[in-house]
């Protein structure tokens, strides 16, 4: 390993700083929850020994295993398929697979019932509905569909940062078949990204609430999170509150028990050190028939799992009432009028500020943990930040209120801390999965060759890491933008976020305005993204034209 490096004092100060933030955002809130149990006691043994809690715990773990087992392969296949530049309509598909990420969970659950449940789209059009949707199978499927885009994003980022097209080409030229090249070159390099995605999906599923609540409850399917919500909901009873806290800590322990060994055993083995240079070689093209089959398969999957439910959601946003035919005669912009008020626009500014600040800080914090966990003294950090990801939003908000409420109750700072605590692992894992592209030697070489600090970081560190950093930023930004559980519990007068204002304004949680909110959020994300994409494409085309005319005018072109 390189002998050069920052002095020990600087390293220790840096590591200490990150550990201090881990303590503030993760350790102290979790310990405060544990302290509540310790001081207030309660019949903890009775709660843990109850058959209902046992069943909920079993359901939770099985669901997490089942969703991870299905969503990860689907996300990996999507990423590998969409990597091929020769895939027909690739740009469209790359955007389309991310669509579920802009829809809040509870709205997504509703969109599936509108599409596939009794009296839904398929029932009306084909006379067929899926009775299993309201039950464990439905919960599983919708969670898989919801998690697959996240896996896709993490693995695509991993591919962008870690793939070695030259290595694949060399394998193929040397006689390896397509599957052999995939198995022996591509997938092993993707190990960290796949591991990162698996941990994220597993932990997110352990802590998921809205979809089990919407789709599982009617079939009597309970999870630890639905029981936690019930404990917080009923009667303001201290015993129920203690039960909710206890179950939340059980979730934390389950997550720690599963993730810590995986991180300890798997993490170091998957790492390699490779040059920072992003290779420009193209992916080996496949036969036309295979490309068509891949595009058709992807289109079918996205039509059934994304297009149909989201079409139902979009129609619900313009249909005046639930249960009436979504035909033009029943269309109205009333739900949008309810969503777009001066109050919501003010809250929108607040939400955008919060989301941008949170996502930017999270990328920084995620990168710091990714770097710090490679040192012996910081190894546990990656596992620690998962603990607040698994806590249901309501319980995490309670933990932060108990810990910092004396000073920060009702302030946006507390909501920001909640976002940071909840999403830290979401930012950290994709970055950690791509960090092999940041060998220290090349950074030192750049500095030794006279590059300024910013130039060295920009040209050596940021370029290969850019996909991972952008991917992490995007996931955090989108999640924070429509987050409602924590902000609805933490906001103060005049500090409401967009989702809080919209959901508060809806007497009795009507679905139409919530659907309109999802459409507004989707447009809010899609319109600037499309504009940026267009601008980048235009700039690239202009650059290519200039290069073609006068190659010597472009720096670096010989």
């Amino acid at each position: 390993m390189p002998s050069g490096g920052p002095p020990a004092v600087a390293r220790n100060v840096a590591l200490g700083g990150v550990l201090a933030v881990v303590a503030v955002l993760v350790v102290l809130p979790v310990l405060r929850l544990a302290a509540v149990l310790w001081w207030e006691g309660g019949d903890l043994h009775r709660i843990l020994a109850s058959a209902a809690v046992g069943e909920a715990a079993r359901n939770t773990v099985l669901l997490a295993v089942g969703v991870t087992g299905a969503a990860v392969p689907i996300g990996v296949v999507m990423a590998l398929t969409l990597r091929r530049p020769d895939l027909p309509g690739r740009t469209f598909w790359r955007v389309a697979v991310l669509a579920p990420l802009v829809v809040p969970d509870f709205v997504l659950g509703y969109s599936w019932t509108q599409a596939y449940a009794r009296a839904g789209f398929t029932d009306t059009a084909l006379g067929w509905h899926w009775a299993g949707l309201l039950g464990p199978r439905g919960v599983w499927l919708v969670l898989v569909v919801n998690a697959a885009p996240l896996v896709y994003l993490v693995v695509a980022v991993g591919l962008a940062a870690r793939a070695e097209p030259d290595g694949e080409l060399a394998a193929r030229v040397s006689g390896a078949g397509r599957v052999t090249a995939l198995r022996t070159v591509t997938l092993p390099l993707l190990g960290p990204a796949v591991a990162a995605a698996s941990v994220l999906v597993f932990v997110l599923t352990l802590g998921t609430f809205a979809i089990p609540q919407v789709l599982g409850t009617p079939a009597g399917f309970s999870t630890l999170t639905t029981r936690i919500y019930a404990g917080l909901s009923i009667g303001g009873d201290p015993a129920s509150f203690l039960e909710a806290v206890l179950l939340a800590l059980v979730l934390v322990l389950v997550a720690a028990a599963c993730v810590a060994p995986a991180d300890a055993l798997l993490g170091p083995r998957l790492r390699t050190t490779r040059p920072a240079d992003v290779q420009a070689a193209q992916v080996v093209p496949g036969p036309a028939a295979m490309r068509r089959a891949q595009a058709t398969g992807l289109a079918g999957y996205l039509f059934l799992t994304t297009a149909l439910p989201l079409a139902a959601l979009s129609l619900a946003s313009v249909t005046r009432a639930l249960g009436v035919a979504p035909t033009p005669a029943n269309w109205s912009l009333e739900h949008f009028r309810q969503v777009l008020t001066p109050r919501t626009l003010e809250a929108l500014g607040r939400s955008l500020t919060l989301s941008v600040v949170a996502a930017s800080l999270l990328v920084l914090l995620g990168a710091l943990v990714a770097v710090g966990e490679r040192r012996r003294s910081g190894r546990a950090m990656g596992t620690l930040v998962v603990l607040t990801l698994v806590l249901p939003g309501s319980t995490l908000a309670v933990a932060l209120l108990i810990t910092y409420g004396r000073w920060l109750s009702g302030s946006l700072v507390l909501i920001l801390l909640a976002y940071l605590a909840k999403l830290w692992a979401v930012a950290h894992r994709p970055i950690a999965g791509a960090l092999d592209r940041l060998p220290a030697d090349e950074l030192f070489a750049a500095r030794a060759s006279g590059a300024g600090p910013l130039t060295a970081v920009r040209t050596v560190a940021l370029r290969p890491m850019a996909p991972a950093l952008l991917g992490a930023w995007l996931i955090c930004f989108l999640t924070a933008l429509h987050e409602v559980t924590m902000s609805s519990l933490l906001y103060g007068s005049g500090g409401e976020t967009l989702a809080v204002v919209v959901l508060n304004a809806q007497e009795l949680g009507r679905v139409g305005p919530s659907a309109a909110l999802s459409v507004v959020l989707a447009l809010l994300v899609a319109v600037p993204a499309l504009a940026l994409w267009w601008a980048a494409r235009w700039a690239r085309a202009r650059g290519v034209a200039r290069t073609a005319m006068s190659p010597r005018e472009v720096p670096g072109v010989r």
Partner: protein
Amino acid sequence: MTVPSESVAEPDGKWRRRPAPAVPAAVALLLLAACGADSGATDVGTGRAEPITLYTCLSDQSIQPVIEAFEARPDGGQVDLFRAPTGELNARVAADARSGGLRADVVWGCDPLTVQAFVDQGLVGGWTPPGADTVPVEFRTRDYVGGHVLYMVAVHRTDTAAPRTWSDLAEDGYTSLAVPDPAVAASALGALGWFAAEPAYGVDFFERLRARGAVQVSTPDAVTTGVAQGIYDAGITIANSAYAAKEDGSPVDVVWPEPGAVAVYGPLALATGSADSDVAKSFISFVVSEEGQTVLGASGAYPTVPGVEGPTVPPGAPVVSPDWAAIAADKDAVLAEYQQVFGG
């Protein structure tokens, strides 16, 4: 092995610190603190009293006009609002109680069980306004007074027969039914408590519903949504939710079945830490006054004071009130018996 991002190597091999990550973080926090939540400043120089903080689960649509009317009164004052569903409200109160004390001056809950639990913890109670006797005795105690009422009613598809009594829901004609979860919604617990105590019903009523294919969803709103969507033929929900769906144009209708819609009142209670707050007391007094109840009724909530106009109540609609003290005492046993039927 790897380079901490705080430092980079100088060409001479020395290390120079770059701005620590804490700096942008601190700037961001200051920015948010500056543009974010209410500063808590009082109307210094205007002679108006300190603002009060209200915690409530009443809908935004109903609470905002009440606050506006109160703030416009000579004896009024600024009301800082925290509004959330009952679960989040309970969680916030529980967290407050464990981090320095309740930060509300007035709590306006949506069911007596929740507010009674706050009384039992010493967080609220001990005072009701002098004019509280205009509120029926079943909607008040010595610690709190009912500000509004929720009515548990039946909602059904317009292409399905209307139930005349609660028992009708357990008869032929309904292939799918939805009931709210009493372990999640206090209004559902109130209804369960009433059915369980009523000799003609008991928890057996839910067994008969279950035998008819009834399913349990989370909240009364989820019942309304499912019936409006067509997933269920009928269900038990709250009147505001059912009428809202009907007024939107959903193909549903609302029935106040015999022997009566179950009334669940939302109590107002003064925080024990605000016993000296005149503004907080004025607010509670205003809500249960005729003027306050009229504003509330016009905003879509059912008033507690008789004779004040409110949302739709069919002529002669029967109403029953649960024995809240008995429900509080038997809650665990009744819930356990009920959960034998629907799980949970």
